């Protein structure tokens, strides 16, 4: 019965397979002349992520018996290096998970297959605007998103109630970063309880919104697209001011821990926790009795929040492009989107998925309104990361500067140093 259910689900998903490349064989389960194998590279996920992906791949192969998918999973920390090695070898990967910020880098080297002519335009049109925006580079689409992401402010209801603190309940009254710091100071009792824990504390993905929120400029300004330089922007006064403030959370005020405290929020060691909404199933599983709530991401002058997540792309030298495109469409279909959201709680990428879960996205009556908040942020405050070749160097050098600031380094010196080094790396990509 269960197998029959899976089979039906597989057929349903197969029906959403996008148009195949012109002149190639099409049709869900139509037998091909010979079986083909697609080598797929993915990030090793948690139990939920791996479970859903395994299901999807099994269903795809059931629906397409002429296509076999050989999947390799690589831990997140080694993923970019492994992906680079596989691509550099010129073989070993046909279709792969990629961060959309890598698109310009791969396109610059002509290593990524544009998918415009293969993907059903309706499927592209169905994407959230912000999700579609990052698939596009130089007028072409190069990937399809698996998930979106947004950061919300989780809080421990007991700890905030004991301190007499009430978090904002609507986006207009969201806390400023200064108000968040004051609340964190009132809640902090290190080393037992930290006022504020930031999930991706050292990654530009989560930290760049601080300078941007402080008036440093929009995403187009982060990296000068003509000159390919960040000097004057990354180390502008507003950026340095925001980063210096960020450093005080860990040093002067000590409201955030300098080293990662595993499961801090779930264990009651963090009063507030800025994290992605996929933390919700983890919090519910690990701390079923913890009274928690959700509020809006803090801001300086303008509300700005991070967004975007993993995509799937196809290697330009793919051996079987039609098979790869079929898989791409299958694993990023609106039906798969529903499944990813239901069990993983990453914000969906298709507009229609949002209409299927009114309790989550309209009334916010489930999961403390966390999904409603993330949907609002994605529609109103989300900013994409810079899209330039050389992003990986930008990200790494910015990460080092963030870590140094967290460890007590001078914000001005660190941002000046990072800007200079990033300029030197980006200069290699000037045509």
């Amino acid at each position, binding site marked *: 019965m269960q197998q029959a259910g899976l089979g039906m689900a597989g057929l349903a998903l197969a029906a959403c397979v996008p148009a195949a490349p012109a002149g190639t064989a099409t049709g869900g389960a139509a037998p091909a002349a010979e079986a083909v194998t697609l080598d797929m590279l993915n990030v090793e996920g948690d139990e939920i992520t791996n479970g859903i992906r395994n299901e999807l791949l099994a269903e795809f192969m059931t629906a397409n018996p002429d296509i076999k998918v050989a999947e390799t999973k690589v831990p997140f920390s080694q993923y970019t*290096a492994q992906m680079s090695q596989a691509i550099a070898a010129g073989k070993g990967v046909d279709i792969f998970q990629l961060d959309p910020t890598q698109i310009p880098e791969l396109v610059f080297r002509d290593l990524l297959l544009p998918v415009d002519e293969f993907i059903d335009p309706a499927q592209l049109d169905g994407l959230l605007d912000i999700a579609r925006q990052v698939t596009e580079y130089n007028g072409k689409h190069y990937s399809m998103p698996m998930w979106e992401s947004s950061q919300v402010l989780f809080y421990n209801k007991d700890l905030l109630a004991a301190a007499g603190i009430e978090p904002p309940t609507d986006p207009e009254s969201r806390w400023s970063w200064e108000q968040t710091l004051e609340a964190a100071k009132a809640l902090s009792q290190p*080393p037992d309880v930290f006022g504020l824990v930031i999930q991706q504390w050292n990654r530009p993905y989560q930290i760049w919104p601080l300078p941007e929120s402080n008036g440093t400029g929009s995403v187009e300004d982060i990296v000068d697209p003509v000159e390919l330089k960040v000097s004057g922007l990354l180390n502008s006064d507003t950026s340095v001011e925001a980063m210096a403030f960020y450093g005080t959370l860990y040093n002067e005020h000590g409201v955030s821990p300098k080293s990662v405290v595993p499961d801090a929020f779930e264990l009651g060691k963090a009063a507030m926790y800025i994290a992605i909404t996929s933390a919700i199933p983890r919090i519910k599983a690990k701390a079923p009795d913890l009274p928690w709530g959700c509020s809006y991401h803090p801001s300086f002058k303008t509300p700005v929040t991070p967004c975007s997540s993993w995509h799937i792309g196809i290697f330009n030298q793919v051996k079987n492009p039609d098979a790869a495109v079929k898989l791409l469409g299958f694993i990023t279909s609106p039906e798969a989107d529903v499944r990813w959201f239901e069990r993983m709680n990453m914000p969906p990428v298709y507009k229609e998925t949002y209409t299927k879960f009114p309790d989550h996205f309209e009334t916010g009556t489930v999961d403390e309104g966390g999904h409603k908040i993330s949907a609002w942020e994605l529609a109103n405050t989300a900013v994409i990361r810079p899209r330039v070749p050389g992003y990986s160097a930008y990200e790494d050098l910015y990460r080092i500067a963030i870590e140094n600031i967290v460890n007590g380094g001078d914000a001005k010196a660190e941002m000046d140093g990072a800007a200079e080094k990033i300029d030197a790396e980006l200069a290699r990509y000037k045509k």
Partner: protein
Amino acid sequence: MVNRFWAAYGALERRRALWAYLFLAPTVLGLGIFKFYAIARVLWTSLFDTDLLLGTGPFVGLGNFVEMFGDPRFGQTLWNSLVYSLGCTFLAVVVGIALALLGDRHVRGVGFFRSVAYLPIVISLTIVSIVWALIYAFEGGLLNGVFRAVGLPPQPFLTSARQALPAVMAMHIWHGAGYYMVLFLAGLQGIPDVYYEAARIDGASRLAAFRFITLPLLRHVILFVVVFGTVGYINTFAPVYLMTRGGPQGATTLLSYLIYQQVFVYLRLGYGSAMAVVLIVTVLSLVLVELRLFRSGRDF
């Protein structure tokens, strides 16, 4: 008759030589492909601005080396690597000999002591690095828990530019000390007791016996440990990658990590290869100096 004898002897020698070459061939082939060819390829690649993903790039001659020596990050990294390698090697010798001296006693429980001292080396350095990162953690770390319990202030072991490198070195020495203990133990047990008896009769103190008998007779073992340690420690990657990612402020960035970063993060295969050439030259230079320092007219 004599000519026939020499002809037969020559044929036998040739057959023997043929067999010898046959047995040596797999090793020579392996070394040739995976060491000498790889080194030659690195040397060649270092002369180009090769992109990792494209596998090609323009010829830049010594341009990568000029850029490297003009980059203050590289200078700091080279210095870190020398401090790390020589510091760890020196301490490995000291700790290894100390453990061996303790383990060489004929007392109850010495077998247990040797086993415990040897234990860390059987654990993967990767796992040890992850565990020690937790031990060193500023919040919730075991060491700082002990510090707090006895009223001492917690220490930012891995987040302080002053403490991070010594902290990683301490972990690495702890991991390898047992292995070096075994080497020194074998060396100690190879020293005939008669030397110590003669020294005692002559009124030599324990310290004098150690200075004038033990150390000179351990010279070959020390040389092995010094060379082996220098090469091994200067190539350290996993602990830095897992514990500090080269930070804070580049304090724990070692050459291997910088090469990884240049090649696999910044995709600069040519530039990373130039750094690898410097790494090879540095290792060779250090080993040559060490061999020279340990050269002696006398042998034991």
